[in-house]
């Protein structure tokens, strides 16, 4: 009887709320999936029960890949995300290391500057930035977004990595220095390898942020062949009042796949990066 009672509490306190959470959080993805494989006669019928697919089809995927620039958009998105993540990780590391471990004049000012640039949101900057990119004649080039995304990613990487760098014991570095290692060697061979989890967290987080970016891409990339997936989908699969729902859903689903794959491999590092700011400090 005790066992049954325990199971009862467990159902009420764990399984039911958990199921509610999962359904609420995941329903839009289920909806994306089944909408993308429904034929138009099911999509645009109020009589057919919409919660399941009756005659699945890959037509929307076929149309998306053959009639739009989706493959180019995907390539652009990934190229920009990889380049900006690598650049931001390198520059972020170079900033975080001295800020976290060395004493030098101006350290406090730079640290506050990094925090401020991390928190000052992009919406304050996008209008002047649009004018600057115009004057640099970089409109409709991927260079425009490659230059601007790191403004979001570098402060984030530096901020996150400072916490990791601080956690490495000073003695390890000092021992290497006594053995004749230069400052650079002490950093590259002692501290950085110990902070691999932090570097992974920052890199994965930066990669997802770069994939998620929309405002700069929307403003700077007005030609189809330079667009990223979010901008391409929202501008070219909706024409005037016509929404290509099947293709929109296919694009949304395929566009999420790269992030989801990276995320599934490194989910623990992602969670560590997410919670580092709030839990560690």
């Amino acid at each position: 009887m005790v066992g049954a009672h325990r199971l009862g509490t467990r159902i009420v306190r764990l399984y039911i709320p958990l199921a509610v959470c999962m359904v609420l959080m995941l329903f839009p993805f289920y909806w994306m999936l089944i909408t993308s494989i429904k034929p138009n006669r099911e999509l645009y019928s109020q009589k057919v029960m919409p919660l399941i697919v009756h005659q699945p089809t890959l037509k929307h995927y076929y149309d998306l890949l053959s009639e739009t620039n989706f493959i180019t958009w995907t390539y652009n998105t990934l190229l920009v995300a990889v380049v900006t993540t690598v650049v931001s990780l390198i520059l972020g590391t170079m900033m975080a290391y001295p800020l976290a471990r060395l004493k030098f004049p101006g350290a406090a000012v730079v640290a506050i500057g990094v925090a401020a640039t991390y928190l000052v949101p992009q919406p304050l900057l996008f209008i002047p930035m649009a004018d600057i990119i115009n004057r640099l004649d970089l409109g409709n080039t991927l260079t425009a977004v490659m230059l601007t995304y790191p403004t979001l990613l570098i402060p984030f990487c530096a901020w996150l990595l400072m916490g990791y760098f601080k956690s490495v014991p000073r003695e390890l570095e000092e021992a290497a220095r006594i053995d004749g290692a230069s400052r650079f060697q002490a950093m590259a061979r002692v501290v950085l390898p110990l902070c691999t989890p932090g570097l992974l967290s920052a890199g994965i987080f930066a990669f997802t942020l770069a994939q998620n970016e929309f405002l700069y891409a929307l403003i700077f990339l007005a030609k189809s062949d330079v667009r990223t997936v979010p901008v391409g989908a929202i501008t070219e699969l909706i024409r005037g009042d016509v929404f290509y729902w099947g293709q929109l859903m296919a694009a949304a689903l395929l566009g999420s796949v790269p992030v989801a794959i990276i995320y599934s491999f490194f989910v623990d590092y992602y969670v560590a990066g997410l919670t580092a700011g709030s839990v560690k400090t």
Partner: protein
Amino acid sequence: MAVGPASVARPAPVVDRRASPRRVLEREGAFSWIMLAPGVLFLLAFVAYPFFYGIYLSLQDRPVAKPGLFVGLANFINLAHDAVFWQVTRNTFLYVAVTTVFKLLGGLAMALVMNQTFRGRNLTRAFLLLPFIVPTILSTIAWMWIFDPTFSVINWTLVNTGVVAKGFSWLGNATLAMVAIIIVNTWRGIPFYGISILAGLQTISPDLYEAAAIDGASINQRFWYVTMPIIKPILIIVTMFSVIFTFADFQIVYALTHGGPANATQVFVTYAYDLGMSAGQLGMGAAAALTMLPALVLLIIGLTLYLRRE
């Protein structure tokens, strides 16, 4: 000419007191600044400069591709006399306040549920975080279809279960459109709160609960007197981060409603975008964006002070 090992011909090495590149790099200050320079210069050029240039733009009448005309505070005065601007202000504060409350409560609930031990917890956590990691525009596309006036699945469910006779025009009605963007923002933000709070809950030692239970504390008391004090700093930090980013939200509103119908869901950023980009009035747009600054500065100072105190 005799060619031999160079060292043979040289006198014994003397310590070179001049600044060779290697020696400079060994100085703490020089090394630090050489490392910092690329990042600092980049951020000065692409964050600090645009920021001040934006203030300069906001003081100009500046159509796209034309020279600007200095107009002082005229743009801000125009905004202050524009009923739409005040509607935008009210919309933004309502949007931020309501979503924050829901995200905080929802996130706390999710964290408490997830803090029990069960098989497959890590996998569940990975799935529950999906709304937060999938690019916002792409998941909002799914929500656009969920709120479609004719084929909304919410309407289908409500009509077929007999709750209402006729479906709602979710994005066509001023109140419902606001409800819709609040729902989507809450949905996307709950996992961030939930997983962060969960990480905090997991730092609480079970001994504390046992001790409290032995002292006769009820479940409620254990929550308010053991759990809450420990996770309070996390709640505050997560909430402040989230408020700052919700305040500056663009994607969800832009995709779902474009600020409509009739500005009913227009928030600061979509409004600045409409003025600066769609209408091409860079000066007005920059001014509209800058009106967010006082509230943001207060939030950022508050957060910085709190982080320092911790």
